[in-house]
């Protein structure tokens, strides 16, 4: 076969593939795995906690999905869901901050990037906060800071273990220094929870970086990371630009953090609830076993 023909065939193949994909992956029923490219039945993917059954790729989950996966059925009671963000600086870069907020609300159905409340995990009573990366990259502005502070204070007041599932790019720059100060505010609240001798488990999902990784996310007794989650302080691009050298392949992954002693364990989402419950038991949490 002449080499030219071989290339022709290749071209035809690549030209056909989008159509093939379209045929076998109609919207909403099938989803292509970002890890192994296999088509996955959406219902099955959801039953599997949004983890690819073939390659264990962890799909992102929304705050409510996470609460559904991690807490006992009907045990979650949401708090402060009506706190809504303002625009302290009148910030408008390529688009006004208030437009970004409105768009995020439409997209996620949430008022802000964190959902908080009381819940049970395998019978253990907990105070829980779950971040949603879909809302402006899970960034921490006034509302996220305030809600994390409040759920932590509630946990301290009611002697409850604290569970926070993180997913955030960091501080929300559209609220300027007010956002940066939320790092100090949330850390101060966590310090009081620690001083009361109460358990705090944080779960770092993809990604946990910047001002969130450098405040409440990493102040826990036990830090759990989800497989392959990006965890670190400075973004890889900024580091590359500064030091002008190539970064290691697994840089800032959950596994990298485990190897360097920054997290206690990397836990597959399918085993997460069970692991949190086992840890809560060791940390002296109380509750009614189901």
């Amino acid at each position, binding site marked *: 076969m002449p080499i030219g023909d071989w290339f022709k065939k290749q071209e035809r193949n690549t030209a056909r593939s989008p159509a093939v994909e379209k045929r076998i992956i109609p919207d909403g029923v099938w989803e292509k795995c970002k890890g192994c490219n296999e088509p996955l039945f959406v219902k099955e993917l959801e039953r599997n906690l949004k983890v690819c059954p073939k390659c264990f790729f962890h799909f992102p989950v929304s705050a409510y999905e996470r609460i559904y996966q991690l807490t006992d059925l009907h045990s979650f009671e949401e708090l*402060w869901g*009506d*706190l*809504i*963000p*303002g*625009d*302290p*600086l009148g*910030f408008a*870069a*390529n688009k006004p901050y208030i437009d970004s907020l409105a768009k995020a609300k439409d997209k996620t159905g949430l008022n802000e990037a964190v959902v908080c409340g009381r819940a049970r995990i395998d019978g253990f009573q907990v105070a829980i906060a779950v971040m949603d990366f879909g809302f402006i990259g899970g960034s921490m502005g*006034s*509302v996220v*800071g*305030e809600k994390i*502070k409040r759920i932590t204070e509630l946990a301290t007041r009611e002697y409850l273990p604290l569970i926070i599932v993180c997913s955030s790019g960091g*501080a*929300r*720059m559209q*609220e*300027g*220094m*007010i956002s*940066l*100060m*939320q*790092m*100090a*505010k949330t*850390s*101060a609240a*966590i*310090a*009081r929870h*620690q*001083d009361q001798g109460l358990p705090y488990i944080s779960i770092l999902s993809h990604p946990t*970086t910047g*001002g969130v990784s*450098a*405040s*409440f*996310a*990493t*102040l826990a007794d036990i830090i759990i990371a989800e497989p392959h989650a990006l*965890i*670190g*302080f*400075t973004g890889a691009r*900024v*580091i590359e630009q*500064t*030091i002008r050298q190539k*970064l290691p392949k697994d*840089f*800032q992954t959950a596994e*990298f953090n485990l190897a*360097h*002693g*920054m997290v206690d364990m990397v836990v597959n989402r399918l085993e997460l609830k069970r692991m949190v419950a086992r840890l809560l038991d060791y940390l002296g949490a109380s509750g009614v076993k189901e």
Partner: protein
Amino acid sequence: MRRFAYDFERPLIELEEKLDAIKRTESAGKEDIAAQIAYLEKQIEKLRVRTYSNLTPWQKVQIARHPDRPRTSDYIEAIFTDFIELHGDRTFRDDLAIIGGFARLDGAKVMVIGHQKGRNTKENLLRQFGMPHPEGYRKALRLMHLANKYRLPLITFVDTPGAYPGIEAEERGQAIAIAQNLAELSRLEVPVIVANIGEGGSGGALAIGFGDVMIMLENSYYSVITPEGCVSILWNGEGNPEQAASLLGLTADRLKELGIIDAIVKEPLGGAHHAPALVARDLKKELVKALKDLIKLNPKELVEKRYARLSQIGYYIENPVKAPVEK
């Protein structure tokens, strides 16, 4: 040698250089030259006022970064007596991007911690331009513990573009090091006074940068992200740092309006490096005043007050009233 100057200072510096050149010529002293010198000096004064009187936020950021700007060590020397520097995090190494130790402020024993930039390229390489690694923050943490143990008020100097962005910094837990300092600062049972003398770059600044009283020099800045970083994220590099600096509300004036800081120390026209002794004197006054007020509080009151102060920082709407439905 040409003097360092930002673009907006260039016309002024050129005029000053011209004056210097004339003064150096042999004919100096002749009457017509004297008149020319007097005229130039007048022009320079006018231009100086025009250049520095209404600085934009971006120009202030530039002055905050000026290579001749006084560093933490300069203020320690000018403000305190009997400074004893302490080194190391007891775990990995001594990070020279942060310095600290015992000192006396107006006779009172205190602990001082600050970001330390270099004065020249050689020193800046040693001190990483004031950008700490985790061991720098852990050195600071160790000194915070000492301050708490021996009941020494803590005074910090903030002057960093940010925490060091590097592979090793991440490997050794930059995020965790900063977080632990934030938690510790909030529970220290001694007065904590913060003086921002230059750059307050994000989390790397905050890790030694909040307390009971927060003071900023007039041309220092404190920001959630550098203007350049903001441009690269929000505009994908299409905007300019001037716009970003204006949007971020990072100047001392704006942060006082927002209730984040308490006091501003004035600087001479052109910035602190034009009269370092004067700025140090005024900053000392503010530090002494703050310390006098804070030592009246007992440890529990101090901690409660600091917590309450942090607690109220935020801008949000609760229980939004639904607009009445029109009939």
